[in-house]
């Protein structure tokens, strides 16, 4: 469902006003798109979740939300001639092209809707739709099963785990089977609530993984923007639910960080919730800054970056910020542990490489690496002995 841009120049005379009649910047659309927009509005009144988000966000253009940090409105890379600027608006199941005229009015020139936009529960589509799913252990408790949630809300259960999956999975079941295992490492050994009540899954369809070492800034990832708008709406609706944990798995970090950016732009805070990044494929530092802005309750450990040196560096780059924030549990002690652990994770490969390559210089480097590792171990041992002594003498 798309309409071509008509040949004659667009002006207030040959376009119709759809929003901003009384206040704000007027928004127009070309006459071919008027029925599409009306249908969208009608669906929004009937509580269609995607349409409701779409109408709300398109109307929000009247307030002029076109900042550099805006996640779902992106300017076209090359400027078109004639003083009017072109923007792309990414929304769940929909992509719109908006032109800003020099007189600061907006005109929607293109609306591309997903083929199954209005069919919420269609048999073939149920597992491939962007949105929130309830995940539960299936019959005989051997694999995960997901069910699409029409209004996109998380279960109003305190302490709910919400997994934000990477894209690149064909169905939500597949995403659940793969991501929930990773997200559960956040809970540590106590996974009983997830096994009994299940958890929620935010699913992003797509052919490629999100983010990478090349595309490490989450705000530059394009294919997750629509999904982030949906997740932001879900997060905002879940504000009243206590202690919800939003856990991003692999490339889900791009979606979650973008959603946090949207909420930060809106000025929403989520003091009851927490976030965690399991093996993020985008920068955890960026996400941490946003987490502080959203007043999220961050745990001592904020991300598991595994063996990624870049992830470790990214985490260290915000350590000072975390220590200065009084509401962050991260402290000097944790920092020392993290630093030594990081040193070990980087020094061990160097030590191994040195042993393999050989040579006198390499041996020296290897011994340095081993020394760092040794300091780490003795630090850890010292800590546990100190804790023991403190406990024994009730210090």
């Amino acid at each position, binding site marked *: 469902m798309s309409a071509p841009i008509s040949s004659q120049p667009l002006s207030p005379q040959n376009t119709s006003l759809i929003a901003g009649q009384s206040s704000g910047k007027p928004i127009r659309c070309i006459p071919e798109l008027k029925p599409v927009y009306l249908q969208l509005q009608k669906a929004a009144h009937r509580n269609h979740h995607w349409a409701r988000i779409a109408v709300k966000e398109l109307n929000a253009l009247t307030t002029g939300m076109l900042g550099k940090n805006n996640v779902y409105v992106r300017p076209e890379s090359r400027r078109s001639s004639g003083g009017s600027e072109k923007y792309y608006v990414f929304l769940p199941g929909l992509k719109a092209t908006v032109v800003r005229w020099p007189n600061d009015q907006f005109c929607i020139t293109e609306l591309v809707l997903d083929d199954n936009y209005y069919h919420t529960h269609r048999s073939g589509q149920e597992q491939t739709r962007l949105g929130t799913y309830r995940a539960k252990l299936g*019959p005989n408790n051997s694999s995960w099963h997901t069910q699409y949630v029409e209004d996109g809300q998380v279960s109003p259960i305190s302490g709910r785990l919400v997994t934000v999956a990477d894209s690149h999975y064909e169905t939500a079941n597949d995403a659940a089977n793969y991501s929930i295992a990773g997200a559960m490492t956040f809970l540590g050994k106590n996974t009983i609530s997830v096994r009994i009540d299940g958890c929620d899954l935010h699913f992003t369809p797509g052919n490629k993984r999100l983010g990478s070492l090349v595309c490490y800034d989450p705000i530059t990832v394009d294919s997750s923007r629509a999904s982030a708008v949906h997740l932001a709406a879900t997060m905002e609706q879940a504000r009243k639910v206590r202690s919800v944990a939003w856990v991003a798995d692999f490339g889900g970090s791009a979606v979650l960080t973008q959603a946090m950016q949207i909420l930060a732009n809106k000025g929403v805070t989520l003091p009851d919730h927490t976030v965690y990044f399991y093996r993020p494929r985008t920068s955890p530092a960026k996400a941490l800054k946003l987490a502080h802005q959203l007043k999220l309750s961050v745990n001592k450990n904020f991300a598991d970056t595994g063996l990624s040196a870049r992830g470790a560096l990214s985490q260290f780059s915000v350590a000072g910020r975390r220590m200065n924030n009084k509401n962050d549990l991260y402290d000097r002690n944790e920092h020392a542990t993290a630093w030594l652990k990081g040193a070990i994770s980087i020094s061990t490969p160097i030590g191994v490489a040195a042993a393999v390559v050989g040579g006198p210089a390499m041996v020296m480097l290897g011994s340095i690496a081993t020394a760092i590792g040794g300091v780490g171990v003795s630090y850890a041992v010292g800590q546990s002995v100190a804790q023991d002594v403190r406990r024994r003498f009730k210090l």
Partner: protein
Amino acid sequence: MRNFIKYPPIEWRKRHESTVPAGPFFTGAPTIPLYLAGSKVCITAPRHSPRRSVCKQKSTYPGYDVLRDSPAGLHTDLTMPSRRWGVACLFARRWAFYGPWMSGCKGELHASVAVIGRSDEHPLPDISFFNPKVFETLIMHYLNDRYGYENWEGHHSHVPRYHGPVDWKIHRHLPVPSASFKICGRGESLRDLYLRDYLFVFPVSDQYFVEVCFIQDFYSRDKKGNLAFDKTPIQELQDKIFRSITLELGPEAQASVEKVKSKVGSLHMCKDFAPLKWPTNIYPPEASGSPEIRQALRNDA
């Protein structure tokens, strides 16, 4: 083993084109014996070969009898809100089906075998699951508890998530009453049905029955949402595994079967089973709560 040169488990050039995928060979697959209160259930299935290695298989130690050797009995299945059933999964495997020349995983077949009985808080003494009429009522209650309560929340809480049982079929190759059927997922109207679970149930003792569950997951669809590949290999493997299931009754179970047979006559269940009225928040099952069920089951028997 399948042809690993043409059908490798690699997804370097993913395509959603019409192909015939290949999965594990059934010939030469091992037979797994499962012991249940002296009876022996055998199932032949290929080795576990999932698409994602995080999906682990479930197995039982050889010779271990879950009903006799486990001191605490079955664990109550907490995923069902009613908490009336105890479930122990004895066997679960997945098999991935790959398209030719690294065109990606097309689908997966999941099979599991579980033994199910009433939980300790909701026992049903004095009845025998071998009685076909009792077993039918029992399956009805089980399906209500397992699937019936799920609905499309919010404004659509009157619309059930599942529809079933459909394609009810009784089988005569086991010495006990047995039936297979499908549970479908459904959308707003009954036109939007899709197959979810294929179930096969039969009793193994007076208080326990076995549920064999097959689930097919499809990963390759074209732009219209239709299947983009031929699913017959998946169905074939499922049929072969299904046909391989055998049951040898132990002496105790044999005695109770004889007793029921002399009392009722035929051991066959009814030929038709209409889909149940779901969701249960709109249509509460008539006999809910433990004493009433017991009375209903007694009347049936």
